[in-house]
């Protein structure tokens, strides 16, 4: 103000009229259009993440909200629980089966379908269809298939392959693998589609060049094709990885975590702790642990992605 009053009147006019001008539509439009989604995401995603973290730090362990701060006590208690320890082991085990199965089968089918033989379009669709089902449907069907008294065991019996019979979902040793089987069945088609897109994107010239240099088909695959598929593989790992960490519906339908804790998952226990036992703080703590687990997977990917973009 002091400087403004010191200036002569004529000089003062121009800047003020500029600063008073209303923002133009051009400038306002992007803000206007973005604001609803920004506000909604801020409240319904980040706001709720904040609320969950807060709930996990208090002593809300009944139907009555109780916001007495207890620090990390809920987490301490959680990691001491036999059930949650089993959950973490199961998650790692399941993720390993699921990722390995999807990627091996997905890559295998993609390579086969990339041979441009007759009928590839048909099989491409056949492999993709399971993806269109929800996990609930997959789970129900596979529960029937793996029922030890009626499903695949009966077929094995009729084929005189009785020694292959198994308790499937009812045996603690096979239950988690059986669960993985259903999940792989559903998601390997998705992996196949990603790899197929990747394979089609590799220019034929590169392979031609390698062939000219005397590489055999095996070397061609491992030295040319496979390295070029690395970004696709990484995307597949990220996408499948977070599905597997958060898996709930399949477990709920197929085993409900049983027998014992053999197929229990953090997400299922989160649901039971929150809505079955009214241990809201414990449920929130599990949710935060899950969030961190997914973040461990996603954040490096995002960083890698962003760096890639800035390099371009």
């Amino acid at each position, binding site marked *: 103000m002091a400087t403004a009053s010191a200036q002569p009147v004529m000089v003062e006019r121009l800047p003020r009229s500029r600063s008073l001008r209303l923002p133009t*539509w051009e400038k306002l*439009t992007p803000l*206007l*259009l973005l604001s*609803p989604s920004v506000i909604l995401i801020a409240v319904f995603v980040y706001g709720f993440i904040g609320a969950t973290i807060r709930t996990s730090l208090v002593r809300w*362990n*009944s*139907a*009555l*909200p109780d916001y007495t701060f207890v620090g990390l006590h809920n987490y301490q208690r959680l990691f001491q629980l*036999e*059930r949650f320890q089993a959950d973490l082991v199961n998650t790692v085990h399941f993720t390993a089966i699921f990722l390995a199965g999807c990627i091996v089968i997905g890559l295998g089918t993609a390579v086969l379908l990339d041979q441009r033989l007759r009928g590839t379009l048909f099989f491409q669709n056949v492999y993709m269809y399971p993806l269109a089902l929800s996990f609930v449907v997959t789970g129900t069907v596979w*529960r029937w298939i793996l*029922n*030890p*008294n009626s499903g695949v065991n009966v077929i094995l019996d009729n084929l005189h392959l009785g020694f292959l019979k198994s*308790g499937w*979902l*009812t045996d*603690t040793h096979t*239950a988690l693998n059986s669960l993985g089987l259903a999940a792989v069945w559903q998601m390997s088609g998705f992996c196949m589609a990603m790899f197929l897109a990747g394979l089609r994107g590799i220019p034929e010239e590169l392979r031609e060049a390698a062939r000219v240099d005397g590489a055999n088909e095996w070397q061609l695959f491992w030295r040319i094709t496979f390295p070029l598929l690395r970004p696709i593989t990484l995307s597949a790992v990220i996408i499948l990885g977070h599905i597997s960490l958060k898996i709930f519906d399949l477990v709920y339908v197929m*085993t*409900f*975590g*049983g*027998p*014992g*804790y*053999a197929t229990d998952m953090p997400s299922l226990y989160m*649901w*039971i702790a*929150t*809505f*079955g*036992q*009214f*241990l809201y703080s414990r449920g929130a703590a599990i949710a935060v642990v899950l969030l961190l687990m997914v973040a461990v997977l996603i954040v490096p990917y995002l960083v890698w992605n962003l760096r890639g973009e800035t390099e371009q």
Partner: protein
Amino acid sequence: MTLTHLIVLLLVGAVAGLIGERLVSRGTPGGLLGAIVAGLVGAWLMVDVLHLVIAPELSCCSAWWPAEVSRAVGAGASRRSQRGEGPPTRGPSPDAFLIIRRVFDEDSRWPPLGTWRRLFKGGGHMGNERWSRRQFVSRAGKTAGGVVLGLSFADFLAACGTSNSATGSGTGKLEIFSWWTGPGEKDGLAEMFKIYSKKYPSVTITNSAVAGGAGSTAKAVLATRMQGGNPPDSFQVHAGQELISSWVKASKMEPITSIWNSEGWDSKIPKDLKDIVSANGDVWSVPVNVHRGNALWYNKKLLDSKSVTPPQSGDDMTSALSQLKAKGIATPLALASKGGNWQVQMLLENNILAAGGADFYKNVMAGKASFTDAKVTQALTWIKQWLPYANTDSSAIDWDEADNRLIAGTAVFHIMGDWAKGDFTSKNWVPNTDFGAVPSPGTTGKYMIVCDTFGLPKGAKDRDNAVGWLKVCGSQEGQAAFNPKKGSIPARTDVSASLFDAIAQQFMAEFKTDTLVPSSAHGSATPPNFANGVNDEMGQFLQNKDVTKTASNLQKLSDEFLKTA
């Protein structure tokens, strides 16, 4: 669709259209009407075309989509105008959008459609102005943005509209929440609704039953509604701690003591049962029915043919099982544990009742006695002794499938609540001919209460109607109508026994004389956090069969959840 709905949608259409106009800097023909129609068309585009076309190609560059959209729009519009049918449905759309489309279809003769098609088509010409591709993309993008804005308003307002109309007309409605969706229980509920409608003909009843998971899904839904301050008018809940430790403690319930007294239920409902539903000197819910949790069901013909008698104690049971196995039945005990092991928890509580008696049972479930007591280890030991005679696929079957094993003759015994009876009879098995029931081993003279009740939440929208409902629930007429269908016995002792089958009559007689104890597996004796923890422990016990470890783990749960309760 209500009139308010239509008006709201038209208004939103107008707003969206006007925003769109502003953004494209060009008026639609027809002024406000044109804007409304344009807004509705935009909404339809977003809902029916864009997200379905674009979604699978998110990674694609944005320059790609105008061509695709113009094709889709052109196809959709021309098809509709040619055949006079609605736009192609490619997936389920939310209700509101169906309405938008319906409105739009009726008004398809309105002119602006062609203009809009021209806007998208080719992307080159717009009036006299020649647009660059870039300009076109940016303007089309803005229009779409405006439409999204309008759409979110539409959804929001439509949602508001619905909830307003639901809450606005308070009287004349009654919402009853339960998990009674199975055969029998559903019919029993319908019978009670009939009685209610006879007494209060002007009240419309909403049946908000939630299926699945033996009530676990329903309880989750209820928890969300109670926490969110939107309780149903009255809801099904197991008698006792399930209600008292949760919603009563959170002071979200209204005591019904005055209703209880004015209806004179003291003289009709046993005092043991009243004690279960009471806390802090008040009564909190009305018992509708009583199930018996401690029953041993057997295939009568098979048992007779093997000349074995129904066991009277835990040790009897073990020897009966081993005799049956010796006589060629590999798995004489049918065991289910699917859906969270509550069936095994019933075995445990019945055995604790058998080993320790009613007083010890009540004490241990109240945290006043220890789970490491010899009586509890005795109970666990019995289960351990029986397990070799049970099917090993218990985690894949539920109680009704275990019933099937009795019917098929692959098993002889099943320890389960008396809902098993309804299941047997529905499968054309005749009581006391094909199957029989005795109290579970060692619990003669004791009655494990599994009881469904209805309570009165604070803030019920139709409180007076809900009070009427509670009176029907506790009435002789209501219980006489409900219980034969459900397969339970009435909580009142003055309902005529002639309505019931032989086994229910036997149970009704015992209900009047036996010691009544609340079930923990079904929420009456213990709070849900304890009962759920016990479920987990029993699931573990089936695997490790370790009596000492399980007993000490149960005590840990007791320390954590029962002492503080």
